């Protein structure tokens, strides 16, 4: 009895959702087994985690404020990365760009904050963070355009330069170093929360930070930019085939530079939001959003609305596990990282079932049934621009690889 794998032309949306839900629940189940092994009741733990411990909590609004503070930089970073990824520019330098942005914003806050009115300082913080993060991202883009270097390696290495620059600033006590508190003997970052604070809209006890509203606004703008504008069209064409873009008379280098700058600048803006709400720089300022953002962008298949959904869930996971960790001392908050990895892994596995169906050999009636099912699915032709890249890699496989795959499949069966 053998099995073989047949490509689905289209998968109805309800089926997709079911596959993804199965993946997420499987991840939670595996996490649950791990929890049971260390004598923690998984239901209690998950209950605490997904409600963020707000049930029966008097200061629940604080948890929500925290949640949004984590959510904003992650969402914005993922949106920014998706711009570059759409163009098949593998910007994995989100961390570095975020750090440079954070340092720039802090510089403005510390130096100009006491002198200028708050709104102007905030605007200058955002602008400085955007410009310098954008320029930092531009390094890798310019090298790629000019010398054909690999942007993955370049952005990766630039991450470490930025990270160690931040460490250097954070640990060097010297007269010039205005980033550190002067009165403290140990190196501690100077806080500017008294001078500059991002405005928030009060809703009872809850405060909705302006950065949340701005992030939603930017999300809408990026969505329109990608889907409707000429620039967005160019990004899509360049991502699809640079040869075709040149043939159509597009200035590919210019488009690459422009898009990478915008992508990095938005990451800079995310960092300005982050330091602006925190009121202080720290060596862990990024909270790994440069990495997590990549995961979010991919899980959302580069679709802007989906990025909001995915990043809300990932932030829930991270915030929730921090809250749960305070109740369950046995479980470290890095449990969330493991869970996040599991979910990513299984969702990608679910992707396989969305694109292929497994058909049993020899039993012909059953196969016919699957074929007709796929055919009906084809009728409701749903074309999703956002699965382009995932499918593209499939296309790129050479015939030999396909042969091997085919062989592998028959061997398995």
């Amino acid at each position, binding site marked *: 009895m053998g099995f073989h794998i047949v490509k689905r032309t289209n998968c109805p949306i309800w089926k997709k959702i079911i596959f993804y839900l199965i993946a997420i629940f499987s991840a939670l189940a595996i996490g649950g087994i791990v929890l049971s092994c260390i004598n923690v009741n998984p239901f209690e733990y998950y209950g605490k985690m997904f409600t963020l411990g707000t049930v029966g909590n008097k200061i629940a609004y604080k948890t929500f404020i925290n949640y949004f503070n984590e959510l904003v930089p992650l969402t914005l970073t993922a949106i920014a990365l998706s711009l570059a990824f759409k163009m098949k520019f593998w910007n994995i330098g989100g961390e570095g760009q975020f750090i440079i942005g954070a340092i720039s914003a802090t510089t403005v806050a510390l130096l100009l904050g006491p002198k200028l009115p708050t709104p102007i300082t905030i605007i200058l913080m955002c602008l400085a963070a955007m410009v310098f993060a954008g320029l930092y991202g531009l390094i890798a883009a310019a090298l790629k355009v000019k010398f054909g270097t690999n942007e993955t390696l370049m952005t990766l290495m630039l991450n470490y330069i930025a990270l160690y620059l931040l460490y250097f600033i954070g640990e060097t006590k010297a007269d010039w170093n205005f980033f550190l508190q002067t009165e403290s003997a140990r190196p501690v970052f100077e806080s500017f929360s008294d001078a500059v604070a991002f405005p928030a809209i009060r809703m009872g006890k809850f405060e909705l930070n302006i950065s949340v509203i701005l992030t939603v606004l930017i999300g809408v703008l990026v969505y329109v930019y990608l889907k409707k504008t*000429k620039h967005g069209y160019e990004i*899509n064409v360049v991502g699809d085939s640079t040869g*075709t873009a040149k043939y159509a*008379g597009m200035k590919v280098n210019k488009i690459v530079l422009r898009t990478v700058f915008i992508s990095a600048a938005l990451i800079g803006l995310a960092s300005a939001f982050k330091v602006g709400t925190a009121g202080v720089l720290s060596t862990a300022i990024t909270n790994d959003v440069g990495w997590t953002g990549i995961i979010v962008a991919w899980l959302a298949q580069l679709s802007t609305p989906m990025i909001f959904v995915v990043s809300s869930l990932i932030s829930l996971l991270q915030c929730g596990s921090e809250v749960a960790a305070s109740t369950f001392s046995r479980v470290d908050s890095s449990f969330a990282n493991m869970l996040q990895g599991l979910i990513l892994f299984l969702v990608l596995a679910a992707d396989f079932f969305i694109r292929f169906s497994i058909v049993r050999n020899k039993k012909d009636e059953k196969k016919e049934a699957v*074929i007709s099912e796929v055919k009906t699915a084809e009728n409701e032709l749903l074309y999703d621009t956002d699965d382009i890249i995932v499918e593209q890699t499939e296309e790129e496989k050479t015939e030999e690889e396909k042969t091997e795959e085919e062989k592998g499949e028959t061997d398995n069966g």
Partner: protein
Amino acid sequence: MDNQYAIEMRGISKTFGSIQANKDINLNVRQGEILALLGENGSGKTTLMNMLSGIYTPDKGSIYVNGKIAEIRSPEDSKRYGIGMVHQHFKLVDAFSAADNIWMGKEKAGFVLRKKRYAQIEEIASKFGFEIDPKKKVYDMAVSEKQTLEIIKVLYYGANVIVLDEPTAVLTVQEIDKLFNVLRRMKEEGHSIIIITHKLNEVMSISDRVAILRKGEYITTVNTAETSEQELTEWMVGRKVDLNINRTVVEKTRPLLEVRELTIKSDEGSVAIDNVSFYIRGGEILGVAGIAGCGQKELCEAISGLRPISSGKMIHKGDNIVGLSPKAIMEKGIHMSFIPEDRLGMGLAPSMSITDNMLLKKYRNAKGPFVDRAQGRTDAEQVIKELGVVTPSSETPVRRLSGGNVQKVLLGREIKAAPNVLITAYPVRGLDINSSYMIYDILNEQKKSGVGVLFIGEDLDVMIALCDKILVLCHGRVMGVVHAHKTSKEELGLMMTGALDLTDKHEDKPVGIAKDSLMDEQKDAKEVE
């Protein structure tokens, strides 16, 4: 033993997702015969042959080799049963010598490369009358040599049944003759041969029997001697088809595009186009014939501004276009459609919809920062309707269309742009008869409306029938420009291989320079000033 089939395929079915590539196909090949496998694009010929060579396994049905059922699950199995396939795209290692390419696939060859492998390969080559130097590296070989090597490779591993997938697509007329002689000799030795080709004249000349597939279904098998090209076409297409290309004669204008002493370098830095001059008038189709890879691509790229030229002039309606950006050249009305081997590499964004692809060259024209998708959709729907593109909708990504439909979309867009010079390279590459004729009609329409068409083609029969004049290239040099109605395939073939040079035929009139050139006029005008 006479009636025993070397290969018999019974009730073979294969599906890919929702696509039924093969449906209940019966095919048989006798020992010592040449069977031609005929069918339109997407009729499942290659899929069927891939099942024979173990690349795919059939969903249903069985294969018999010499009367016994065969389990072919991998290319190794297929080799063991004595089946060998020569693929359309050669599977050779460029950096290896001919002998090493053959040696590579040998099981139990041991770790040591022995000198005697050269002698062994030479022996098998001479047995079948091949000329090949076993020590020659593949990257030094011409296309025909590579193909010979592929065939020797298959024979070396003791193949009794040889499958050739479109072997003649890349060869010149003379090389095709040579190949056919080899095939006939192999047949005499008792080998069975299955040959896939689109060219009916080749089917008629080489095969003993013809098997026809249509849309994944088996239609019939006929004796070649008892059929005709017309009949084969009808079986293949399923209805009557007019096989004539009408060459209309149209009033010609003064030269639209003039190219003078053009030299272009290839990516590797060698000279791809060497001192080439030609001109195109409105209302004529100028064919460019030449063996694959003798500068056609570089020429197309240079004219459309994608590749810098080393020296020479290019004049469009009296204006210089050398050094202009691709966009500026496009705006002058010069449009290029180049169909590369993979059909998608240049000119289309495969993951994007037909609508978006229609906008590729004119998205800038919309006012404001937004792309005018409504315009694209109207264009897409028009092209779909006028050219009969088979697609679920105008929003389907181009990648999901079959080869012929992709080409229609590309050509449709170029024509929609209302060019005055249309450069089209391999527009019918790999297309079946029906779609090909549709493309020829489109080109003729363009010619009638006064467009100058540069047609870079492969099939000499078609070029002779369609073009007004034919420019022949050999290794980037012009071998002459001939009138299509005065030339023959043989003459063109000789010119393509460089054996015949007609550039000095008329001493008074140099090749490729128009009598009423706008280029000279421009110069004269300057001198008068």
